[in-house]
């Protein structure tokens, strides 16, 4: 590649990693603000995705003779798993206002939330469905033999047990969500990645700023991993004879939380 063609070389010759720049920007107010937006957007979208996924899973597992719920759930999953997230985000932000003749114009954050939730719901639907199907069929039968309807049995007996199977892949999903939410910067959501790009496009300090972003993303996903193990322990009740001792990582983090 000829020198000067790549944006990295536009400012002149390459420089070594400047630790001082990294350290200054690590807690820069704009970066911190972006990180907050990333967390907010991810948590809200994941929560909505879990709810959407639950209903879509129940829809797919519906036993009604009319395939209305099964059909809607299938179409939804097909559509949102089958198209790119980036396209979906742009669709909500750009195409919805056009489609509605400017009557419905969701803002940047709302568009990103809608797009990420709908996309996540499609994946959560399959995860939730797998979890429900993993619960032994005798559980539903026992509940029904006690006079429960299918719906009550789902709510009281099957879903609480399915959560055990659903948590680990949902942890995966949330970690992916924290990272994929950076796509929202393309529709002008001022998240962590948006601010990162804003700063390096002004200063040309790509190496330092991208390292800053990576450290923040790693910190978030690390906390998410920790949260997952806590949740897993909570829902393990009754399923194992021994209470697992917290591991090294968990002890360290619990200690930090207590001190903090």
């Amino acid at each position, binding site marked *: 590649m000829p020198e000067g063609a790549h944006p990295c070389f536009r400012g002149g010759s390459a420089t070594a990693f400047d630790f001082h720049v990294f350290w200054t920007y690590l807690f820069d107010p704009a970066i911190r603000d972006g990180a907050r937006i990333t967390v907010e957007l991810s948590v809200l979208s994941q929560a909505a995705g879990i709810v959407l996924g639950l209903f879509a899973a129940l829809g797919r597992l519906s036993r009604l003779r009319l395939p209305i719920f099964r059909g809607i759930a299938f179409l939804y999953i097909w559509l949102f798993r089958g198209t790119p997230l980036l396209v979906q985000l742009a669709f909500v932000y750009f195409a919805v206002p056009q489609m509605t003749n400017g009557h419905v114009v969701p803002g940047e954050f709302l568009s990103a939330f809608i797009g990420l939730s709908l996309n996540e719901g499609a994946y959560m639907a399959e995860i939730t469905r797998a979890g429900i199907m993993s619960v*032994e069929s*005798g*559980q539903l*039968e*026992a*509940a*029904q*033999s*006690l*006079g*429960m*309807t*299918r719906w*009550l049995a789902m709510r*009281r*007996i099957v879903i*609480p*047990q399915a959560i055990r199977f659903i948590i680990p892949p949902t942890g995966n999903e949330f970690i992916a969500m924290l990272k994929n939410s950076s796509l929202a910067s393309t529709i002008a959501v001022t998240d962590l990645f948006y601010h990162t790009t804003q700063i390096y496009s002004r200063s040309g300090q790509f190496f330092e700023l991208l390292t800053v972003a990576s450290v923040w993303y790693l910190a978030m996903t690390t906390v998410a991993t920790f949260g997952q193990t806590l949740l897993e322990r909570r*829902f393990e*009740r*009754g*399923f*194992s*004879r021994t209470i697992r001792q917290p591991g090294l990582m968990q002890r360290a983090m619990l200690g930090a939380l207590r001190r903090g």
Partner: protein
Amino acid sequence: MSASDTPMVDVQAIHKHFGQLHVLRGITMRVSTGHTTVVIGPSGSGKSTLLRCINHLETIESGRVYVDGKLLGYRETKNGIKSLPERLVAKQRADIGMVFQRFNLFPHMTALQNIMEAPRHVRKLPKSVCRDEARGLLAKVGLALKANSYPSELSGGQQQRVAIARALAMHPKVIMFDEATSALDPELVGEVLLVMEQLAHEGMTMVVVTHEMGFAREAADDVIFMDEGVIVEEAKPEEIFDHPKHERTRAFLRAVLEPRSVGDSHLTNLR
């Protein structure tokens, strides 16, 4: 007609297929209120399917099942029978207890919570009432001290006794046992049979599928021998065990009561 004339369970000529397999070929049986009927027979004879039809966990293709005089799972119309909506079937099932071979306790709940669950959320009784009753039932099955144990912390025999208490908490009109001791280690069978015998003597209406011939002899009012989807023989326990009329009954009882002799002849044949 007086109450005693209506049997608690009245099964009339029911048929059931699983694909090509004709598992129930016109089963007719009655269980009077307060009686215990034990169903015996080789595996695959349709015993468990019969039980599952008596609480509509399996649908039937023809015939009728009445429990306490009410048609189960369907309603009569001019054009034959129509399925009841799920809500009404659930209501009927609430009065029909079932104890499963694999216990099927709810693993995420303690023993006490398992027993309280249906009275609380199906009958919608106050929590304190459910808890008191559940404690009483645990004491009745000899597990008062295990109230806060999870199923995974209990032995198979203890789990099955909790499952019986769970069924009793609904005050069922009839309770069915589907090979309730078959999944247990031999030394744990006795404690469960003891609870079942006690229930039978207290006048609970019971339909019991089991391979425990001692229990059948001791606790049954009637014994039904099933084979290949039909009732081959139905009699009082002493008759069927001491003077079985049919060759198939005799062969089955020989195989169950003296497995050694049958096993030996098998080996002889193999040689």
